[in-house]
């Protein structure tokens, strides 16, 4: 297979400047692919997919009874990020996470940003993710968001934007690690020739971040991953991370509060737990404090947490920052808390909550992407340019019924990467989710998950909506 007829069209292509002219960071890769014998690439693509299937790298799809488990489709053509671009992203992400952490700490404690009227108080109070039981909490070492996955996109000029912040329990890192493992065995030669930043450090970094949270008096803390169970869409990842870190994967039913401490039930009796990496939503963590119908949580957990006898990552309450209305204020937060200009831009966002902006949104529904403030996974959104009149009318009603819950953004022309569709290369739209750890300091994992829309022309990259993934190569500084 060759790129001779590949045309980036008017999109920003991550590997090609124009037809037949690769970007500098893609040159070696393209040359290598051209030198493969006929049929070899397709063969390796199949082998890679099979290897992932064998690893059981699956995710579950909600709302389907049969065959709920699917393999996340994988494309062997990687996305390559230059050292220079990465430098920029790294700085921008560190700055953003720093500000977001300050924000969360502030709104659950002093609320300065509300008192100074930078963010309207009622927006916070009406946010689903703002949890009253978390008011006054002081998490260990002042960190709330230990693990973040920030969604980035690039427009047709190559300009980077932050699309979403995911601070509650972002998923996807396991695919990053497995994709790389598969790529290394699929194209061992290429890895010898191109200086690519390794990704394998993540589990050790994550474990260090978690251990850092334990009270200093405990020399060998017990750290666990808390999962909702095997039917959760990201279960594969929960068990993968526990395995890679060599710690227990627990479910709510394994844990119990006894004598003021969190304990897990083992074959030898109860054992104290010091740090939880929770992959459970805030609402479900403790039925005595949050949703009382939760079967997944641990009654009494919050009390133990408040007493500082267990650390939780991410801290309960961080979900407030996933609210897409709050997202719109992140540039203001950066200014307010850090007194810096934001390095990474937000996508311009209309808040339906403000009447003027609402009118603009309703008048331009066919141009905009409308998103519900609290849903993820590509659910609850309208892509104006690809919608029908009936869909727009229905959405207009939903927006008017609850304007606080909706935002709108211009339809971005996402950047593309050549991808194997059928037996040829097609340009497919991608986004990027880097992972950021906040322990002793802030660490940005090199690369992240590149999700790709595998339907021709589609802009939705979510795995639940038919998206796939690619390996992400961050080149080393020359």
């Amino acid at each position: 297979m060759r790129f001779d007829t590949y045309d980036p069209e008017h999109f920003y292509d991550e590997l090609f400047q124009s037809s037949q002219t690769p970007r500098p960071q893609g040159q070696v890769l393209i040359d290598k692919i051209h030198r493969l014998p006929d049929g070899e690439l397709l063969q390796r693509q199949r082998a890679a997919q099979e290897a992932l299937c064998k690893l059981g790298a699956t995710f579950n799809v909600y709302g389907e009874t049969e065959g709920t488990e699917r393999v996340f489709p994988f494309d062997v053509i990687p996305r390559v990020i230059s050292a220079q671009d990465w430098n920029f992203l790294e700085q921008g992400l560190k700055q953003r996470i720093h500000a977001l952490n300050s924000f969360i700490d502030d709104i659950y404690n002093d609320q300065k940003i509300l008192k100074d009227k930078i963010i309207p108080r009622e927006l916070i109070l009406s946010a689903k993710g703002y949890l009253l039981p978390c008011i006054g909490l002081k998490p260990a070492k002042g960190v709330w968001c230990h693990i973040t996955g920030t969604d980035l996109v690039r427009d047709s000029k190559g300009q980077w934007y932050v699309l979403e912040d995911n601070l509650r329990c972002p998923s996807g890192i396991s695919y990053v690690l497995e994709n790389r493992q598969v790529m290394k065995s699929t194209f061992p030669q290429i890895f010898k020739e191109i200086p690519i930043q390794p990704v394998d450090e993540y589990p050790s970094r994550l474990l260090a971040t978690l251990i850092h949270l334990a009270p200093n008096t405990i020399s060998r803390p017990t750290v666990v991953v808390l999962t909702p169970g095997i039917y959760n869409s990201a279960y594969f990842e929960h068990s993968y991370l526990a395995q890679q870190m060599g710690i227990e994967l627990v479910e709510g039913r394994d844990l119990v509060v006894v004598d003021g401490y969190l304990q897990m039930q083992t074959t030898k009796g109860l054992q104290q737990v010091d740090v939880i990496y929770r992959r459970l939503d805030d609402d479900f963590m403790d039925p005595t404090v949050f949703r009382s119908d939760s079967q997944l949580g641990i009654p009494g957990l919050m009390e133990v947490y408040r007493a500082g006898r267990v650390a939780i990552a991410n801290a309960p309450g961080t979900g407030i920052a996933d609210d897409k209305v709050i997202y719109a204020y992140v540039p203001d937060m950066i200014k307010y808390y850090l007194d810096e200009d934001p390095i990474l831009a937000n996508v311009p966002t209309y808040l339906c909550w403000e009447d003027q902006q609402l009118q603009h949104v309703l008048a331009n529904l066919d141009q905009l992407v409308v998103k519900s403030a609290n849903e993820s996974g590509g659910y609850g959104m309208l892509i104006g340019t690809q919608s029908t009149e009936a869909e727009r009318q229905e959405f207009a009603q939903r927006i008017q019924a609850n304007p606080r819950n909706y935002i709108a953004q211009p339809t971005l022309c996402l950047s593309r990467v050549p991808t194997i569709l059928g037996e040829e290369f097609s340009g497919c739209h991608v986004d990027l989710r880097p992972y950021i750890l906040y322990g002793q300091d802030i660490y940005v994992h090199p690369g992240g998950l590149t999700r790709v829309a595998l339907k021709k022309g589609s802009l939705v990259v979510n795995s639940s909506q038919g998206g796939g993934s690619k390996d992400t190569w961050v080149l080393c500084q020359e």
Partner: protein
Amino acid sequence: MLSRVADSIYWLNRYIERAENVARFLEVNLNLILDLPTRVQQQWQPLVATTGDKDFFDQHYGEANAENVIQFLTFDPQYPNSLMSCLQKARENARSVREVISTEMWQHINAFYWLVANTAKDLALADLNQFLEDVRQASHLFAGIMDATISHNEGWHFGQMGRLLERADKTSRILDVKYFMLLPSLKHVGMPIDELGWIALLKSTSAYEMYRKRSNRHLITPAEVADFLILDPDFPRSIRFCAAQVERSLHLVSGSPLGSWCNPAERSIGRLRSELEFLTVEEIIEGGMHQFLDRLQQQINQVDQEIFKTFLDRRPIHTHLQVQSQS
């Protein structure tokens, strides 16, 4: 080790062993049928009886013919002990302890599951033999991989207990049914069909070759076969062997010396093992084979229950008082 994790490893092994035994039953029956004179009616009913789920079969299938029984035992997704269901549950359990078992184990279970699931879609009867052999091999491979790729610590021992208790149970069931089925032919000792039946019984437990080697006798008699499958100290599918291994694993988990007991599970398995050590097959036959095997199955169940209560269900009672929003 988390109690839930130990429980999953235990059941993971039980289900794989169960699947293997289902394949064995079918495989041997198919072979036996090939050898039977055409006028002799095909024997499918006993196979249903072996499972202990005759009621389910009668309800869903009715006649015990080849087609029905094969479907029932292999691919019936409704029947909880079909090959398909066993693999499904084994895989679910494996999934829930993926981070504890080795990657090799997980990959193999995954492949094993797909072997059965894909075959379930369209299996020509002609390929059934090959398929059953594949299942048996896959089960052996699983045991080997588990043996060679994870530490022989607590988890491994719980796996052993699951596998060996299941095996003891299945050996006793198949013996029970075959003994009952072959018994009328005791009057016709020496007739070819009779011996074929007993050979089939030995083969379905992979015991034929070892039986020949051990007994050093050329006759295959019901008493000798029962003796071998129940009381042989060295054959890995004999009930006594299984019981001794389960006991060993239990003591390695608890740390208490063999010959003593520190929990009800150790007590019940110790009792069973020592009974098997000092029993003779003549005594068994005298008291009634069926009665003996029936009681044996109950004892095996009891060991299973005691293991569960001692190690796997340690939940303090007050956790059940979860606050519910019931009105």
